[in-house]
């Protein structure tokens, strides 16, 4: 029987998909008034456990109790009726509906049996104002940025959760300020006695907000601990089952070599677009990693869009090997040997029914032209090598990619661009949603590719990561390139300072 005090309790949960065991005898307990982090590597089974608890999947084994009573939600609607609100990893709500319609789908306020739109609008505004969001709730969801959509999804789930709130990687597209706002809402809900489960790969956030942590590895329970009593390194080794090898920087030596090949073959001069990014100069040498830092909305992604021809520049020139090029479209950029791994790859990049191997080969095939198909042997070899080097799990190249966990799908998309062997690869947030072990692998891979002469532009909000991989970092603020840091001056603190001081300057203006 269950422990009467727990809010939600699951015992011996087991689930397998087509012969793959995703969960094996997992116990999980959520108390009232706690924030409980659920951690583990990509593919550990976190999302699967959530989906079982919230009625998306049916479990093969085990039982669960809510408030001491045994429950088996058969679908999301039943879970919601029980007071469990969830933001799933892959859901971004419905773009064809308005914000208000999304917030109240399935529970619209009604008068005389008909939906009361005015009431719905009023309540939506009230709901979102708790998150500092003052937007037109009658506009389509698709007219807002990913971050706003994410907040709307969270607001909906919070409002739905009478007892339990589940958030599967909710902060992946939020900036620091929004994360803070979310956490203050969560703390308030905790005081109200709600139980909150949060999945994230940001350990800082785990320590900032959670009370206890449950770690899964390969579908098994590793343990549940109080965070206050758990040193970070121990938590990491619980997750990985081994110590994390530290990424050693060998930049000093490299910098010399990069600097000595003085001529940069890829040059952007006075490149910019009105209303998007102010004109900037960017010269990229072979083997160089250029980091791009800045707050969300400072023009980071817009810079990437310009470099890859998604947006057309209206000033400046681009040259490759002293040859003028026109980046009028992504195709043009690809022809010039550019590659771009976008921030929203999770939703945009994946063709679910294609196998992992097909997904990886896609960009390479496009570059070669469809008249010269890649043989299935080549494809398999390509997939094998990336599955190994990026540690994509399960290591089965023929599995449809939709059956992979979120983080493993991202690794496959990264592999897709790496496979084209571009001379300039632009990565927008390359390690979002990727677990800490794979994170290190990806950084190592970046170093190796650069040693082979590829140039990289890496956009990231994680300053530690930038300083670890980049040779120099361009700092953006308010759509302008405000500073460039390299050598000894390249530290996370200096980047922060550059962002802050330029913001201050603007305030003073």
């Amino acid at each position: 029987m269950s422990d009467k005090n727990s809010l939600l309790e699951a015992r011996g949960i087991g689930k397998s998909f087509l012969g793959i065991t995703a969960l094996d005898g997992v116990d999980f307990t959520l108390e009232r008034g706690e924030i409980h982090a659920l951690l583990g590597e990509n593919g550990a089974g976190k999302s699967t456990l959530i989906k079982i608890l919230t009625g998306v999947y049916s479990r093969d084994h085990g039982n669960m109790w809510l408030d001491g009573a045994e429950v088996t939600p058969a679908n999301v609607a039943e879970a919601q009726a029980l007071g469990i609100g969830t933001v799933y990893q892959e859901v971004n709500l419905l773009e064809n509906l308005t914000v208000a319609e999304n917030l109240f789908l399935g529970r619209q306020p009604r008068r005389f049996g008909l939906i009361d739109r005015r009431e719905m609008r009023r309540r939506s505004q009230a709901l979102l104002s708790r998150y500092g969001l003052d937007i037109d709730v009658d506009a389509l969801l698709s007219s807002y940025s990913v971050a706003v959509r994410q907040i709307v999804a969270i607001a909906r789930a919070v409002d739905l959760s009478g007892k339990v709130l589940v958030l599967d990687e909710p902060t992946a597209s939020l900036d620091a300020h929004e994360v803070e706002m979310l956490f203050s809402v969560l703390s308030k809900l905790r005081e109200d006695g709600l139980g909150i489960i949060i999945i994230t790969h940001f350990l800082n956030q785990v320590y900032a907000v959670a009370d206890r942590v449950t770690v899964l590895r390969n579908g098994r329970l590793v343990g549940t601990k109080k965070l206050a009593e758990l040193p970070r390194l121990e938590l990491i080794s619980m997750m990985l089952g081994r110590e994390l090898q530290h990424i050693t920087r060998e930049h000093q030596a490299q910098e010399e070599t990069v600097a000595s090949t003085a001529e940069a073959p890829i040059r952007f001069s006075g490149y910019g677009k009105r209303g998007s990014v102010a004109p900037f100069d960017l010269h990229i040498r072979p083997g160089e990693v250029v980091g791009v830092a800045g707050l969300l909305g400072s023009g980071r992604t817009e810079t990437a869009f310009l470099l890859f021809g998604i947006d057309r520049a209206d000033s400046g020139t681009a040259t490759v090997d002293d040859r003028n090029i026109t980046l009028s479209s992504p195709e043009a950029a690809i022809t010039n040997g550019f590659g771009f791994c976008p921030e929203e790859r999770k939703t945009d990049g994946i063709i679910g029914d294609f196998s992992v191997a097909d997904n990886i080969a896609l960009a390479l095939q496009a570059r070669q032209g469809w008249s010269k198909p890649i043989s299935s042997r080549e494809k398999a070899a390509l997939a094998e090598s990336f599955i190994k080097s990026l540690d994509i799990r399960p290591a089965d190249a023929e599995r449809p990619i939709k059956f992979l966990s979120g983080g493993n799908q991202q690794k496959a998309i990264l592999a897709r661009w790496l496979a084209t062997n571009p001379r300039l690869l632009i990565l927008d947030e390359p390690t979002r949603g990727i677990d800490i072990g794979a994170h290190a692998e990806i950084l190592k891979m970046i170093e190796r590719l650069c040693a082979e002469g590829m140039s990289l532009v890496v956009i990231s909000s994680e300053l530690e990561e930038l300083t670890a991989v980049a040779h120099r970092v361009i700092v953006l603020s308010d759509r302008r390139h405000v500073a460039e840091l390299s050598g000894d001056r390249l530290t996370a603190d200096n980047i922060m300072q550059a962002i802050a001081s330029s913001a201050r300057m603007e305030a003073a203006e």
Partner: protein
Amino acid sequence: MIHSRNLPFVTTLGIFVVAYALCVMQFPNMLSTRVIGNLLTDNAFLGIAAVGMTFVILSGGIDLSIGSVIAFTSVFTAVMVGSLGVHPLIAFAAVLVISTLFGSLMGAMIRYLGIPPFVVTLAGMFLARGAAYLISTESVPISHEMIDAIQGFYFRFPGGGRLTALAMLMLAVFLIGAFVAGRTRFGANVYAIGGSQQSAELMGVPVGSTTVGIYALSGFLSGLAGIAYTLYTSSGYSLATVGVELDAIAAVVIGGTLLTGGVGLVAGTFVGILIQGLIQTYIVFDGTLSSWWTKIVIGVLLFVFIVLQRGIIWYSNRKLAESRLTASAQKS
């Protein structure tokens, strides 16, 4: 401000008004209640069926069985009333039950067997047509005092036009359909499923019952359209209404509903029907044009609208990019 999702509807309405004005300039007589009344009556059965089709397309599906179900209904009613002497009301109730069940069955197959709507309703199309032939291959006349009474019932507009029972039935169906789509949870769920079935499911939308409900509704309205058609022609004929489902789809698309689902209005379909009726009326007034011009103009309009929809998607994507920029500019 016009939200971009209403833009197709507003465009359709604009096209209708302009086209009507042009017609009236050429034939001033077209601006009479008589013409309008006839237009509504002549298109009543198509309009009723098109409301069901709107729901189906909004959910991202398609229903190809409509024309056959109308034919089946009309033959079935005609034989029951004309040959077997059953009271019309009983016959009507029976066909509505049958067509609704038929629709639910198709919906259940789509949902629970995972067969695409195109395939299921294509099979349904053959099945219903075959069943109609089985009942009778002749044109079966029908006459009953009650049917005569319905046919003879109308309100007179000033100017001599008639608002017949059939036209009223169609208007009522459009009105109720608009309310169901816009103001009920069922309607909201239809839009949600059309947007993304997976997301809708994860947001707690009862996808199964809604899908069955959508095709049941389409079946019911096809049955009702069949009754309207029987009343309109005073007979039942199993070879009739071939391809009506395509006319219905055309009305829905011209009315601004996206074929991919999730975006559109029942009112748009009404304007779509009016536009089709207007073209037919114009051809009648002109007197020299072949009636096939109706099809040609509808074909052209469909092209125009599909291009227009592409344009709107492109435009709203651009708007999205711009608003994202201004939003983040405000933030920093």
